[in-house]
């Protein structure tokens, strides 16, 4: 079981490296100190989407990762700093 999963993982990594255009899709793969534009918030959680919107985190807005702490990311949206976890970073699609 473990072996299969490892293979799958390697396959994914392999595919990603072969396809640089798809390399950065969500915030968890973004570089630190580089400004990105938010493309979409990918989640079924409407409440979360609404909440992020009121913070100014929505399609077209700029977002920057300031640092990666523990398993959290410090991001800046508008003029405020937020700490978000990996799950949320993966839900924020950027380009």
């Amino acid at each position, binding site marked *: 079981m473990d072996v299969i999963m490892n293979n799958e993982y390697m396959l994914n990594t392999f595919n990603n490296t072969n396809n640089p255009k798809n390399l950065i899709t969500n915030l968890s793969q973004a570089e630190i*100190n580089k*400004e990105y534009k938010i493309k979409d918030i990918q*989640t*079924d*959680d409407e*409440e*979360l989407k*609404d*909440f*992020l*919107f*009121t*913070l*100014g985190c*929505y399609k077209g807005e*700029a977002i*920057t990762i*300031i*640092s990666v*702490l*523990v*398993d*959290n990311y*410090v991001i*800046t949206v*508008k*003029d*405020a*700093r*937020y*700490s*978000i*976890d990996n*799950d*949320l970073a993966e*839900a924020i699609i950027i380009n």
Partner: protein
Amino acid sequence: MKIALTGNPNSGKTTLFNALTGKIEKVGNWAGVTIDKKEGAIKKSLNKTSQTMIAVDLPGAYSMSPFTSEETITNEFVNNESPNVLINIVDATNLSRSLFFTTQLLELGIPVVVALNKSDLNIKKKTIIDIQKLADELKCPVVETVSTGGSNNGLKKLIKEVGLVSESKQEAPFKPLNINMEDKESVKESDIRRYEFVNSIVAKVEIKKVRANIQTKQDMFDRILAHKWLGIPIFAAVMWMVFSLSQTYIGPLIADVLVGWIDGFYDLVEGLMGDNVSPLLSALLLDGIIGGVGALVGFLPLIMVLFFLLALLEDCGYMARVAVITDRFFKRVGLSGKSIIPMVIGLGCAIPGVMATRTIKNERQRRTTAMLTPFMPCGAKLPVVALFAGVFFNNAAWVGTMMYFLAIGIILLGAAIIVRITGEKNSRSYFIMELPEYRFPSIKRAAISMLSRAKAFIIKAGTIILLCNAIIHIMQTFNWRFEVVAENAANTSILASIASPFAILMLPLGFGVWQLAAATITGFIAKENVVGTLAVVYGITNFIDTEELVLINGATNVAGVMGLTSIAALSYLMFNLFSPPCFAAIGAMNAEMESGKWLLAGVGFQLGMGYVVAFITYQVGTLITTGVIGSGFIPGLIAVTVMIGYVLYLIKKGDIKAKTKKVIRTS
């Protein structure tokens, strides 16, 4: 005239409210400190008009669309109680987000005055805002304020403007065009246009020298304080410092003085009464009232210093970072890093701790945190710990330390059990927490917070606890026929007969005597009562020397009077720490859980946890120290097995539920 203070979370509303009214409501440097609206009259020195102005502090709202309880309160207040003027506190360091809410407020048809708060921080950041232009764009007055500042804080001007606009009509600067409020997409589109409008204003009025997304000194602090490996040790060191300062160094120093006063008062009253007063009355006054309350007041400075230091912690912005570093641990047991804030506050008092859970959006996480926060030994439980450590463990430091670590262990275990029972072990939850800027904590605010706590404590000691001690004293002095019980027949007293049935239940825990059962019961009224009641029922008030927080000459005597082994004493201590909190805290749990079922389950869980922990401590401890099991092992084992079995059954049921659903929620 009614004025509502509105604004984003952590924009400084409560600080402004306190400055305007002279009140001392709780403030802290993270989003969501204020959870209920509060009212107060504006100080005469600020209000130059003839009519009284009532300011209402509302919880922070990011925008007007209701989705959490904080925002709902704001909405309901603005819509139902129609205040005369709204003061919109705008965080000057984050104009573009704050003004979104401002434009919504301006549509309500109630005159708005914008208080551009934290303008001092902007000067530091070299950001310039054209106040006049901003006022023109918004079509409402804008006043720069520094609500943390001293004399020149803009508050007089703010109140003057409030008086001027109260009768006027303002025109909304942004008018949403043909928007269908029923249609979510339509509202969203309009909101995007609103943001565009806000951005256009910001572009016109703000000149920023330093862009928000470049690294600052603050970010450097974050990288150290919230470092993957350093974060937890730093947090532990900070908490250790808080405790050693309050419990070992500064606290006892002040306690010396207080205890001196109480001793003096005791002698004074004793001298005044002379020998002519009936021994019954003198015992009630001296041992029952002065002794019982005095045993407690000696601990007041320790608790005050603890509150002072916790207030400093809350004020400087560190708490949000603690949430970040603990998130990964709490996540494993189905909670989020936000759960740490109620628990740290709970070290002072469980009531504000439980109330602080309201910032947690996920319902299960909020309820679980409210259920587990009271396990943190609060300030009122400190005297119990200190007494037992002094009497039975030669004042060993490990007793107190162990209680805190045990509390953390129990909380994590409890959370892991609850997430399984609710069947949400597979649910994903997102973590997002605003990181406020660090600031130097205000000594003044911390002192105010400390004094208000001390006042509450003294009032409690002077009313409820005094009354309890007097009643306990009377109940143990008389029997049911209201005759004074004989010297050697203490177990015929009213108190003994009431507490005895409970004592039987506690036999398997090693302390099946009515005196200890009585102290546990009064502990539910207020945990401070435990020490007071013990002092009264055992008549040991003279032994409890709060001066050094040990029982200098009476330690062995007290241990002898109580007739407990050290293991049984430890078990009793744990039962008191890890059983349900005082009634007031249970009331707070009820308010935050918003579910009778959860409250019942919560109190049941706390009771069961206390029983199981005490049972294991006593029985295992006795087996190790004496080689034989303790009293009442078999009935206790049956009770504990039933409790654990029931929890396991619920977990199994929850697991089945978990298989059938997969939920994603926000924390």
